[in-house]
Structure formats: structure tokens, C-alpha cells
């Protein structure tokens, strides 16, 4: 949370919707786990391979860390990873409830829906700030890239999603 606030301040432009989401998250911070677990850190559609038998590989482990495994489940449900299949919150292929049940069946702990929702809101605001940061890399001259610049205009997608998510959470 502190890192997200720092990024937002560093970017400079006022962002009322992100402020609202961060304050919402801050007031509802889940209790820390007694035993932190392995978190992939970028577990989303685009970072795993599947074949007829199921998941065959999970890619891009460079953000792996110890923490709350609900971070991965929340990130997978961020709307930007549904690639148009908006009615299938889990990565564009299933419901949240199916994802949670599969997680529990596969040996994960019990999923608390409120905790999973918190991490989905966190993931959404995180992606929104990453979008602004990508544009900032171009604007600051550290990377000259039209693609980076254009990602800045994707931040508003997460504002739409956050306003929806905060309503669902009340």
C-alpha cells in the first residue's frame, strides 16, 4: 500500500478514484497471515500454458515472494486479464466461486470471499497505477516507446472497474 501511495505521489497528477480505492483498502486491511506462503506475483491469463490435460507450465516467476496467496487469486480476477470475457471473472475462463473451490480442492486453505475481494480491488488499483507508470517511463525519457505512452490511457479502464468493485464490496 505504501508503495502504491508513493508511486501515485511520484506521478504527480491527482487521481481521485485511485485515492478512493486506496483509502477503501487501507480501512479494510486483512489481518496478516501467521504463516506467509509462496505467491507467484503475476499469476494471470498470459502467464500460464494449458493443454488437454490442464496447466502444463506457469511462467514469469520474477515477482514471486512470500505473502498472502489470495494476492494471486485476486490478481487472476482483475478484469484486464479477462480479455473480453467479462462475465468470467477468473482469468476469462470461470467464476470466482469455481476458482476458489478448485484452489481448496487442490490443497490450498479455505478461501475467505471478503479477503479474495480485497485482493481483487488491490490488484485492480495496482494495475491502474502500473499503466500510469508505463506512460511515465516514456514521458520521463527513460524509455522512448509509443506502446508505453499509450498504456497510460488504459488506466481509466481500472477506474471503471474500481467504482464497480467498491459498490459490490459494500
Amino acid at each position: 500500500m505504501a508503495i502504491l501511495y508513493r508511486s501515485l505521489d511520484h506521478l504527480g497528477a491527482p487521481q481521485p478514484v485511485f485515492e478512493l480505492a486506496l483509502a477503501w483498502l487501507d480501512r479494510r486491511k486483512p489481518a496478516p497471515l501467521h504463516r506467509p506462503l509462496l505467491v507467484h506475483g503475476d499469476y494471470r491469463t498470459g502467464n500460464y500454458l494449458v493443454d488437454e490435460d490442464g496447466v502444463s507450465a506457469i511462467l514469469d516467476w520474477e515477482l514471486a515472494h512470500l505473502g498472502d496467496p489470495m494476492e494471486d487469486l485476486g490478481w487472476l480476477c482483475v478484469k484486464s486479464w479477462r480479455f473480453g470475457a467479462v462475465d468470467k471473472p477468473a482469468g476469462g475462463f470461470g467464476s470466482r466461486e469455481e476458482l476458489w473451490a478448485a484452489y481448496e480442492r487442490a490443497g490450498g486453505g479455505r478461501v475467505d470471499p471478503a479477503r479474495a475481494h480485497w485482493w481483487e480491488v488491490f490488484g485492480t488499483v495496482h494495475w491502474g497505477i502500473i499503466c500510469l507508470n508505463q506512460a511515465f517511463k516514456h514521458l520521463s525519457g527513460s524509455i522512448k516507446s509509443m506502446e508505453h505512452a499509450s498504456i497510460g490511457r488504459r488506466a481509466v479502464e481500472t477506474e471503471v472497474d474500481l467504482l464497480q468493485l467498491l459498490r459490490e464490496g459494500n
Partner: protein
Amino acid sequence: MAQDRPTESELLIAIADFLREEATPALDRADPRLGFQMRVAVNSLAILEREGRLGPAADAREQARLVALLGHDGTLEDLNRALARQIRAGQRDERDAAMMAHLDATTADKIAIANPKWR
């Protein structure tokens, strides 16, 4: 002095249509990576076309709503900074119906420019 036609919007649409329909397929054959970059560029041109057409009125509506909400005047950036500061200080949250209506309207206007298909 008014410019002759095409208007800003018409010219941007003509450029985007040319790039999408003629340049992109040729680029895809030559170098798919450049084809992808061209799709990003075409998408950004479409954003600029919508921004030129819808942006000024959207900004004016946002400004008027912020003035009504905050009770003082200022530039769009100053007003948004004041609102952001109030939210961070805990003076406003999602139970503030007037603010939520403002944020819904502002976000709707922004997404109508940046990506009207988003839902």
C-alpha cells in the same frame, strides 16, 4: 480562421482507416512486431479523434461538477488535487453520494474517449 474540410475528426479518421486497412496488412507480412505496434498507433489515433470531439465538453462538465462539489473555483487540476487530498485525509469516502455521482460521471466520460467498448 476556420480550416477547410476535412475537419480534425474527419482527417484523423481518414488517417486511421488508411493505416488500419492498407498499411497494417503490409506491415504484418513484413514484420508482425511492427504490425502490432501499428495497431497500437491506430487505436491511439481513434482515442485522439474521440478526444477532439468529446473532450472539451467532458472537461467542462467535470469542472462544473467539481466546483459544485467542493464549493470553490479553480483549474481542473487544482480542483482534482483538492478532491484527492480530501479523500486521502478521510474527509470523503464511498458513502459520499454526491462525490460518487461525480466520479461515475467523470469516469464514464473518460472511458467514452479512451475505450468506449470497455465494460
